[in-house]
């Protein structure tokens, strides 16, 4: 396309994106890093304090609780979602009456605003009048009627469950596109060798889906670092910040207690964790490109 690649044409095509992206995505990252080395209350000038914010974190109990909760949601959410969406994708791949309806319903929670999902699930998981515990008590399973939310212990599990409910269809659909790309001959060869259904999944599907599994895992990891509304609506981070995630704790530090410098150092930690998690994804995309594929 070198005929059209004049300097002016390239600038015309590239500049709007580069300008908006740089101003509102890349420069803000540097601003966050800058403030993370300062103390700033919103008044006057930010005071440079070196790495003291980062040192303070390790003595901040609330930060460590938020970190632990985030890692719990990360592990639980990844396991629930990978297993669940893998199973659901296989069902989607079967030709049965109502397949399209099934796909539509499973995907639907993805388009509902997270803030509304948080509200609705709050009414289901409320330990006193919520649907789940009322049901468990009515069938005599009082022992299972735990403090899903509002207590100090189980909130991360509840967050992971609601997150799974919300994202199941999305990740299953990505798996489905991977499954559809596996050539049918692979399974035929496998059948000739006498493999049963389970062996086919183990020796053909999973190895062939390696890349899709990595992509899904990365999207789940970055997704966990985007959970905020669920915490905000279901527990408000409480009681006494015991159910806070890193994102919600950072939001609290910055916009409620107005410790901008410290809040930005938490933001930098979130960013670092998310980048580590996404690294594999970017590498796959880059490698695919080198191989010349789309």
């Amino acid at each position: 396309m070198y005929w059209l690649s004049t300097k002016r044409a390239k600038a015309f095509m590239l500049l709007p994106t580069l300008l908006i992206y740089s101003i509102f995505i890349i420069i803000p990252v540097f601003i966050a890093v800058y403030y993370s080395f300062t103390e700033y209350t919103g008044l006057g000038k930010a005071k440079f304090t070196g790495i003291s914010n980062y040192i303070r974190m390790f003595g901040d109990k609330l930060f460590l609780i938020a970190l632990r909760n985030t890692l719990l949601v990360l592990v639980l959410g990844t396991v629930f979602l990978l297993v669940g969406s893998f199973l659901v994708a296989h069902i989607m791949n079967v030709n049965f009456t109502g397949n399209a309806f099934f796909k539509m319903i499973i995907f639907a929670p993805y388009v509902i605003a997270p803030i509304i999902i948080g509200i609705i699930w709050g009414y289901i998981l409320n330990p006193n009048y919520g649907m789940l515990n009322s049901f468990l008590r009515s069938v005599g399973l009082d022992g299972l009627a735990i403090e899903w939310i509002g207590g100090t212990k189980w909130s991360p599990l509840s967050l992971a469950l609601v997150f799974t409910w919300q994202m199941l269809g999305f990740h299953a659909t990505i798996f489905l596109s991977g499954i559809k790309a596996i050539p049918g001959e692979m399974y035929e060869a496998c059948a000739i060798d006498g493999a049963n259904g389970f062996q086919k999944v183990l020796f053909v599907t999973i190895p062939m889906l390696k890349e899709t599994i990595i992509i899904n895992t990365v999207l789940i990891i970055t997704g966990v670092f985007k959970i905020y509304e669920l915490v905000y609506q279901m527990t408000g981070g409480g009681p006494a910040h015991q159910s806070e995630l890193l994102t919600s704790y950072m939001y609290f530090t910055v916009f409620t207690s107005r410790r901008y410098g410290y809040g930005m150092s938490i933001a930098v930690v979130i960013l670092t964790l998310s980048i580590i998690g996404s690294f594999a994804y970017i590498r796959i995309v880059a490698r695919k490109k080198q191989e010349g594929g789309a």
Partner: protein
Amino acid sequence: METAVRKKFSIKKVLFYLLIAAILVISMLPILWAVLLSFKTNNEIVNAPLALPDLWSFGNYQRAVDTIDFGRMYFNTIFIVVIATFFSVAITFMSSFAIARMTFKRKNTADYLYFYLLMGIAIPVYVLLFPIYRIDSLLGILGTRLGLILPYIAVNISFNTLLFVGFLRGIPEELEEAAVIDGCRLVGLCTRVVIPVMKPTFVTIVIFNAVYIYNEFPFASTFIQNDRLNTVSLMTSMFKGQYSMDYSGIIAASLMIMLPELVFYVFLQKYIIGGMTAGAVKG
């Protein structure tokens, strides 16, 4: 032999349909439960959680309509969704076309640009909240619609670049070369040759961008400070904050806010799921 196979198959079939039914129930139950709650009184929700309402009334919906200015809220939201989605899709298509098709003096320039624009995938929006707040106030657009629209355009760029460049690299250039030889200029080439081929990709990207912006909460709650500009998710949250004891009113309001989106979804879902299974999101 034949019948034995069929019999085994039908037991499997029953189990299979039971599994499907169970998954469907889990997916739909929370929404159906919310619908049920929206007809109950606050007293019934707290004291008889599993019971049906004594009286099926639309009182809760009436209260929601009386307190929330639905017209203004939808106008604010849809205005922002349309403008931000349009510009986000348009400018990312342009830059993606440049990255995938145009030639640069240095061979690696296109790859560097691509990588630069993809980095955003790894950046959680929460990290950007306070910095963008500062930038908005520096530019004098804090609290205006523009102060929300520009960040919305920006946060979709990485995702759109991934899909557009991925697709463009997958289609052959010959058609475009022929058009150029026939005297087609850049704008004509894009609008008359390239975009028609990419229609399904466009539809998928537009829907994903629009859904994201429609539902977005953290940016809206941080950058909008004037109630007159409230968007859908902001309104939901404010209603809950103000009437925190009115359980049934909150549920009714949430359902009314969610309903239009679900209706759109039912009509457009085949493009979302179809676009994704065609490999769009996988990249």
